């Protein structure tokens, strides 16, 4: 699996609200002395200054799949462009897809789950979201796209940090963490970030789940996840409270939900439950990930998903002395928390 996936061309998706600095980051990636060649897929062809040999203009055509599911959308133009690019195999090492500021990253990601030919030749590496430290808090209130892009991200480049004060920065970070506590967050000025922090992340590689991001769930459980019952949901847009001096926000609309169990799960209950969950609630679930310890199974099982689409596999043997703990994370909009918790509980072997 690893050998095969390494031959596939990695694709990095660059999102971010208008003016956040996507093009700055793109040019930084392209101009750095890395010895690699990139094929760059941009919208607004020719209107922005990008210095690269291989630039392809895209139309951001979002196509519904003919399966009756409204959230099963793909980028039709991307299917076509990747198909054409594969004729030039060997002329580039990786692909970067820059989306418009108003784009939903889901159809881009789903293209890599759905299309057979795309899957054969390319692999989604990570969704990188550039956010404007000064304006993101506002955009999270008035632009659903901005919130989507934060929720969907594997890597968040929090840019223009020089334009805000320390408390303002803490504030915007807390807001990001209230939506997506799992993404890697980098504070930058003029998108100055190490290329290794945004490229070759393997965020969608089942083999690398949780290994490059050890804080993926540690942060989740201690940092974000706590009992929601005491809030009583008083319908403010958000509310904050502190733990050990850190400010925490809960976004009323977009949340993450982390589940864990020290006891093994029954795969014959868990798998149908998960499939049914994403089939019925997939529109609300943007991203999902998990490491699972099943009964009578010495292998770690890992899965990840985008909306209704899931992929999973046995990853490796549990190591000697490794805690066989199951951990599942959902990031989504108005997640039916209690229902998901109850469902997960029912999969635990008593």
């Amino acid at each position, binding site marked *: 699996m690893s050998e095969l996936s390494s031959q596939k061309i990695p694709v990095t998706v660059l999102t971010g609200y208008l003016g956040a600095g996507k093009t700055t980051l793109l040019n930084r990636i392209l101009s750095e002395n890395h010895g690699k060649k990139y094929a760059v897929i941009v919208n607004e062809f020719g209107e922005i200054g990008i210095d690269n040999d291989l630039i*392809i203009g895209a*139309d951001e055509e979002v196509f519904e799949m*003919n399966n009756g599911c409204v959230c099963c959308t793909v980028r*039709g133009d991307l*299917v*076509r462009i990747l198909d054409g690019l594969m004729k030039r195999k060997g002329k580039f090492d990786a692909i970067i897809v820059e989306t418009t500021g108003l784009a939903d990253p889901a159809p881009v990601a789903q293209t890599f789950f759905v299309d057979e030919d795309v899957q054969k030749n390319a692999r989604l590496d990570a969704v990188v979201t550039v956010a404007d430290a000064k304006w993101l808090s506002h955009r999270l209130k008035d632009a659903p796209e901005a919130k989507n892009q934060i929720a969907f991200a594997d890597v968040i480049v929090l840019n223009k940090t020089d334009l805000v004060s320390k408390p303002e920065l803490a504030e915007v970070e807390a807001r990001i963490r209230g939506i997506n506590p799992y993404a890697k967050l980098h504070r930058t000025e003029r998108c100055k970030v190490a290329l290794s922090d945004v490229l070759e992340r393997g965020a969608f590689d089942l083999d690398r789940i949780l290994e490059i991001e050890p804080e993926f769930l540690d942060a989740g459980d201690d940092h974000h996840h706590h009992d929601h019952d005491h809030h009583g949901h008083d319908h403010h847009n958000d509310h904050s409270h502190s733990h050990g001096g850190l400010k925490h926000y809960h976004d009323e609309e977009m949340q993450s939900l982390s589940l864990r169990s020290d006891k093994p799960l029954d795969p014959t209950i868990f798998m149908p439950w998960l499939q049914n969950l994403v089939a019925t609630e997939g529109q609300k679930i943007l991203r999902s990930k998990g490491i699972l310890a099943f009964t009578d199974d010495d292998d770690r099982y890992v899965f990840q998903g985008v909306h209704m689409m899931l992929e999973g596999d046995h990853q490796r043997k549990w190591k000697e002395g490794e805690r066989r703990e199951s951990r599942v994370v959902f990031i989504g909009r108005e997640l039916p928390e209690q229902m998901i918790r109850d469902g997960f509980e029912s999969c635990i072997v008593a």
Partner: protein
Amino acid sequence: MSSEQLTIASLTDRVKSVAVGAPIADVHFLGDRAAFVCAEEKVALADANGEVSHVDVHSGANLCTASDGQRVVTGGDDGKVVALNAKGETSVIATDAKRRWIDNVALHPDGAFAWSAGKTAYVRSGKGEEKSFDAPSTVGGLAFAPKGLRVAVAHYNGVTLWFPNMAAKPEFLEWAGSHLAVTFSPDNKFLVTAMHEPALHGWRLADNRHMRMSGYPGRVRSMSWSAGGKGLATSGADTVIIWPFASKDGPMGKEPAMLAPLQARVSMVACHPKQDIMAAGYSDGTVLIVRLEDGAEILVRRNGGEPVSALAWNAKGTLLAFGSEDGDAGLLEF
């Protein structure tokens, strides 16, 4: 299966190898010379003895090709449409003003040709008049009707039938989903598209009745009408799938013929221009000739290597050319 393969009639020792030297995207015949369109930049012209000369057509990828037997027309990611004739001479016959990718080309027997870039389809008549049509989404495929100047433009959620020389409003054939390659039946009665999902969709043009042709494990990338238009052979499954089009109802309510099963996906199909036989190329590199009547098979190329990506007969049906994704190519004379 294995014992059958040992006894299968074979023509492999009569195949002349062609040194194309690069991944192959398509092949056409210009008279008795095979024009192997490479994935990038070049076309390799090969005569019946396998002698090759290379011709430059694009500065990047050769994205799409079409031929009428007189010339091969290619569209490239350099925004150019290039024509190549049997003498090996090339000319740039159209250039996209914004240097966009040329995604599709099609040829009309009277010398007109069509191409598309993004959402716009263009037609240049034999007299040099140029017309354009903006589709509602990116053009997935183009085809000229066998009669008159009518162009089928496939796109998201259907096909538009465009009459470049008439003021009439284009006719829209609706069907949800993304439509890519499009083809008219030779008798002009049916229109068929290969969709992004693994299925074909068809319309009977007299009354626009729908035909759904599904059940493929993979996307259909290659379609070929059998001699006289009696059937439409398709790739996409581990057998050749041939839909019956001989009756006025076409394949409506009928099962397709399934021939030449292998443990590999059919990647290319090419029906013989005159007889009821066809050639099929597979994802494991195998090439077979198949008799449509009873599915009898003759081996042309053994399995091994990359998928077959190009397959064509010359107009007389005396030569078969094949090429693969790794640049292996051959010619077989009958």
